[in-house]
């Protein structure tokens, strides 16, 4: 059922078994799964079916640390999209599951370790795979080679094992699942509905209602047995911190953890690789379109190989999880090589002097997780948005170990390339060429980001170390949950969406087991509720927003 929040009677109350705040990848997945398990769902979405300038502006805030958008220095609203489908509306579709090591505590990564093993997510990854419209749940390069889909990269080894990234060609959850949600009798999808407060009961023990406002000035409430905040890594802490009428530090913030440990996925063009192998040998690192059969139905995906360090090497070298690809192959005498990476010729000449011919020069790109850092954080400012909600301030930080991990990973890959006679790699990260910094050396080079906002309501079995437990339940509130990348304790060297969806499916199973399902159809509120198509513009300026960032 589709509702327009602007047309709901002021002061009325919508009800359901579960209230989900935010209709992005997590919220949509949860709603579908819960509806399928006999639960009624209230899915509250701030935007409409199309982008709207005034609604998007609700994301604005202040950045006082590193810019989230290091290229264009756009605001905090740029990497996110606030309308039905959420940030999948500019998602590039990259997917792979987190490897086992990402879930384990690592002695050299403070605060690492998930409160679950990878095995706990495996059955949900399988379902998430289909929800993300991917191919078979297979991330083994050799297996895909056997299918004739690609060639195992020549650098594949025990030290530098490769895995597959699958790209969906249907990444827009809002497009994929709109009809299903609108037509479901168990789901009330409410557009233009902004939740401005999580309301604790008078005794403060549980959430008893949420306040909903529209930019047109309407206000009403929503009541459910359980509530799920699924609004992304920046908005989750905003809503928890701003809901401070009964708990002054905000909800779930008894241990001053809400908003802390903000993480991104950082990536850099790490330097040139003078290769003795031809351009064709690095083709598997570029996404290749592929038609696959899934349950008898054809589906279009793309496959990409990525290089990892083995878990043993990763731990021995004490590096964070990183993923490496080789891209942009050029002939060694192409003038663009020296334009991009001055000094590449020196390595080519060194090989030539040994009688070795360089056939290709590629760029080594490395993508890395960040160590959880409590000083990297989201707080509230005194500036209010159009709904009276405090805007956020983001102080995003990168640690020395984050940067060092990328350098060490590049060096280890360089050693592998040299050892196997495939050429030489140079660390040249935006002009930073000190591949072996001494303990006191400053490591400062610019990074790019993945538009992935992680960790601000981190998951831990220990309430003093995490905002939510392994199910996503806020430790201190029995009927409040968080879904999405905000709960990631560590980020892995992975794009997060597949794991977001898998976690949402796992949470749906949990909620189905603790929240009694309502077999009674959801009564419509007394006030007029429109089933008419929702206008593509919002209640503000109606100015369409642009999509400046392509998240991966």
């Amino acid at each position, binding site marked *: 059922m589709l509702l327009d929040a602007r047309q709901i009677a002021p002061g009325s109350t919508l009800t359901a078994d579960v209230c989900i705040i935010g209709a992005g990848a997590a919220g949509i997945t949860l709603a579908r799964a819960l509806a399928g398990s006999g639960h009624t769902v209230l899915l509250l979405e701030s935007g409409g079916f199309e982008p709207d300038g005034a609604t998007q502006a609700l994301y604005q805030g202040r950045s006082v640390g590193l810019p989230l958008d290091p290229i264009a220095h756009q605001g905090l609203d740029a990497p996110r999209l606030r309308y039905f489908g959420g940030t999948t509306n500019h998602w590039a579709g990259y997917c792979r599951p987190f490897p086992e090591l990402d879930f384990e505590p690592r002695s050299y990564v403070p605060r690492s370790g998930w409160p679950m093993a990878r095995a706990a997510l495996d059955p949900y990854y399988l379902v998430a795979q289909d929800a993300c419209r991917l191919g078979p749940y297979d991330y083994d390069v050799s297996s895909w080679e056997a299918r004739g889909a690609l060639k195992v990269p020549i650098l594949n080894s025990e030290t530098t094992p490769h895995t597959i990234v699958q790209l969906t060609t249907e990444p827009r959850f809002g497009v994929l699942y709109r009809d299903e949600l609108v037509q479901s009798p168990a789901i009330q999808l409410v557009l233009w509905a902004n939740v401005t407060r999580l309301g604790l009961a008078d005794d403060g023990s549980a959430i008893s209602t949420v306040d909903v406002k529209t930019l047109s000035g309407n206000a009403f409430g929503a009541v459910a047995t359980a509530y799920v905040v699924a609004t992304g890594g920046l908005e989750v802490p905003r809503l928890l911190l701003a809901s401070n009428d009964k708990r002054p530090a905000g909800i779930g913030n008894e241990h001053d953890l809400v908003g802390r440990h903000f993480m991104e996925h950082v990536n850099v*063009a790490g330097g040139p690789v003078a290769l003795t192998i031809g351009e064709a040998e690095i083709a598997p690192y570029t996404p290749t379109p592929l038609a696959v059969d899934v349950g008898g139905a054809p589906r279009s995906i793309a496959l990409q190989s990525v290089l990892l360090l083995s878990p043993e090497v990763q731990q021995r070298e004490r590096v964070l999880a990183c993923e490496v690809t080789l891209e942009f192959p050029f002939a060694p005498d192409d003038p663009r090589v020296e334009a991009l990476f001055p000094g590449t010729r020196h390595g080519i000449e*060194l090989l030539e002097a040994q009688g070795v011919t360089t056939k290709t020069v590629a760029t080594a790109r490395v993508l890395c997780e960040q160590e959880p850092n409590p000083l990297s954080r989201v707080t509230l400012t005194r500036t209010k948005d159009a709904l009276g909600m405090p805007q956020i301030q983001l102080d995003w930080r990168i640690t020395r170990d984050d940067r060092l991990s990328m350098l060490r990973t590049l060096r280890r890959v360089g050693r592998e390339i040299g050892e196997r006679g495939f050429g030489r790699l140079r660390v040249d990260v935006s002009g930073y060429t000190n591949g072996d910094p001494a303990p006191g050396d400053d490591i400062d080079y610019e990074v790019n980001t993945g538009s992935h906002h992680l960790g601000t309501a981190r998951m831990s079995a220990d309430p003093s170390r995490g905002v939510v437990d392994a199910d996503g339940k806020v430790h201190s509130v029995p009927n409040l949950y968080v879904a999405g990348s905000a709960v990631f304790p560590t980020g892995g060297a992975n794009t997060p969406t597949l794991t977001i969806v898998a976690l949402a499916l796992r949470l749906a199973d949990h909620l189905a087991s603790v929240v009694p399902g309502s077999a009674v159809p959801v009564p419509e509120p007394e006030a007029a509720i429109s089933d008419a198509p929702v206008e593509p513009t919002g209640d503000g300026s109606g100015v369409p927003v642009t999509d400046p960032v392509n998240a991966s």
Partner: protein
Amino acid sequence: MAESPELAERGGAGVRSEHEVGRRSVIKLLVAGGVTAVAVTAGVVPRGPLAAWAGRAAPPDPDGVAALGRAYLRRHPGESHATLLLRELPDVRSAHPVRPQLPRLTSTIVSDFDAGRVVNVDGWELARTEARAAAAIALGR
């Protein structure tokens, strides 16, 4: 350990931005990252934007191998003696120029990589033997 939200807000202007994005780096990021996105969408690697930056290369060093050798010696000043270096290159005949003898070092270089005897020279991940050979060439110029 960390400031309160209020303190953070008051101190907003004083919180140091940890980096400035340099023009050159922005260009690289734009070229590398930006082209990635386009390439994924289009399924090709466009060359156009890169072409605009052709010709930005620094003046060519007349001898890249010697340049690497000098970089090695800056990091290892104690090895700035040709005699010492040549002693570490047993396959090289000291009576002859080093450069033409580099192909003889191939197996030693591979062994270096195998054994982790690697050094980072001006960013290049090199076998210690080839780095020393480059240093010997630099000293011999």
